[in-house]
């Protein structure tokens, strides 16, 4: 009885966000780290360039030797907007805010935690990035007050 060998597909990235639009990436370990409660970026081992979002390849020195680092400490809120209307697939999340945090060496685009009321959001405030499990079981990260 011959059985065709089934190729394992590493589609871990389909767990990212309310709706994920891609499942295959070389930085799939990002999802494993999220499951362990860690938000991670990557660093080029050859030139030291830091990347967030994480990437598998360095455009500066064309090296693909990357290592993971944990996003830690506080970032400064650069700007945000609260959506009152959502694209298809995101209606159940409303209202939610998208935002950019500045960590100095890198910036992070993401959502502000639903637990932070809009009236308490001020540009320049310090926030931290934490892993969040969505009601549908998917994973993302959100910004909370530091």
């Amino acid at each position: 009885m011959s059985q065709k060998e089934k190729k394992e597909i590493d589609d871990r990235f389909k767990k990212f966000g309310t709706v994920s639009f891609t499942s295959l990436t070389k930085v799939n370990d990002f999802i494993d780290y999220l499951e362990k409660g860690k938000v991670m970026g990557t660093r080029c081992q050859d030139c030291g360039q830091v990347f967030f979002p994480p990437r598998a390849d360095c455009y500066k020195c064309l090296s693909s030797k990357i290592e993971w680092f944990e996003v830690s400490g506080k970032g400064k809120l650069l700007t945000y907007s609260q959506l009152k209307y959502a694209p298809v697939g995101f209606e159940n999340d409303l209202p939610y805010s998208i935002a950019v945090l500045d960590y100095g060496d890198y910036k992070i685009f993401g959502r502000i935690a639903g637990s932070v009321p809009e009236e308490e959001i001020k540009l320049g405030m310090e926030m931290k990035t934490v892993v969040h499990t969505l009601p549908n079981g998917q994973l993302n990260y959100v910004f909370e007050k530091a």
Partner: protein
Amino acid sequence: MGKVAIIGVGQSSFVRGYPGSIRELAYEGFKEALEDAQISVSDIDASIICSAPEYDKQRSPSGVFAEYLGLVPQPTCYLESLCSSTSMGLRMAYSLVKSGLHEVVAVLGFQKMSEISSAESQERMGRGADIQWESPFGTMMPAYYAMFARAHMEKYGTTLEDMALVRVKSATYGQINEKALFRKPVAAENFSDPNHFMSGPVSSPLRVGDCCANADGSSCLIVASEKKVKGMSKKPAWILGLGAASASVNMSGRDLFTGLAVARQAADQAYKMAGVNPKDIDVAEVHDCFTVSEILAYEDLGFAKPGEGKELVRNKETYKEGRIPVNVDGGLLSKGHPIGATGGSQIRTIVLELRGDAGEMQVKNPEIGLVHNIGGVGLYGTVTILGR
């Protein structure tokens, strides 16, 4: 190498729910451009078809259009840079003509957005951003531009009332543009009236009235070499300056949230190539996909210093009679924004202005005009300077 000119411009009316197919929609802008240039289809050596993908089902629309418009067997290709597709098409046409490869090139932009719902359309536009790292958060165009509006308000004291004034100006001219989608007057008070649709929330701080509407439309530009212009056209609009730039698609790669870096870079290039400065511009079309975008454009183009864009609209300096008239055709806010057709429509307006053919929208005797056309959230930027 000789100069390069635009010798014909055309556009369809911008509408909701165009009752025909995309090839028929494209025909409308194309026919008007050919009639405007007073040439026949056999005079065209090549065509560039521009749109943003996934609003209709046709893959590779260039072949279908070339067949329908009688542009075979000449070469044709498809080009996209989201909302700036036709301006990028003009840039490519310029290089095809300037190089001597072709003498006359048609740039045809189109978009039929009404085949899908508004929420589906926002989802597609959201996927014009980074689908791996941004779209899973539920992004859409108004939310991105709202982040720029917020940052500008915080740093420079620009207000929601200033943004409403941009819409009021836009509506002033939308009413006189027979090809515009939105042709009703708008008052600043509409934005503070909770019962008026203009004040409805979309993505804080932007409201319904701050956003342009999806539309169906087509536009066409006929680009020709100096040699051909002599026999063909009495009123060419010469391409004096072209600038184009790109930026990090993911917002995490941006340094600037109070302006669009691509617009600043493209403007610098275009001014330099044309040998002019912002003070020399007599009439401009800017990419007002949102009210705040027009204020950012004033500053990025050097019509106002950073932070002072609001003064231009407060003092009515960008009205038709003002120091630097901007979007006197109603802009995207009034015309509607059929993505791939928008740049061509903006360029058409400036060409008509330079010729003195803009009718009720005509500003007084302009010699140099500018077009600012942005793709995505400041992802792609083009600035085009035209002269008589």
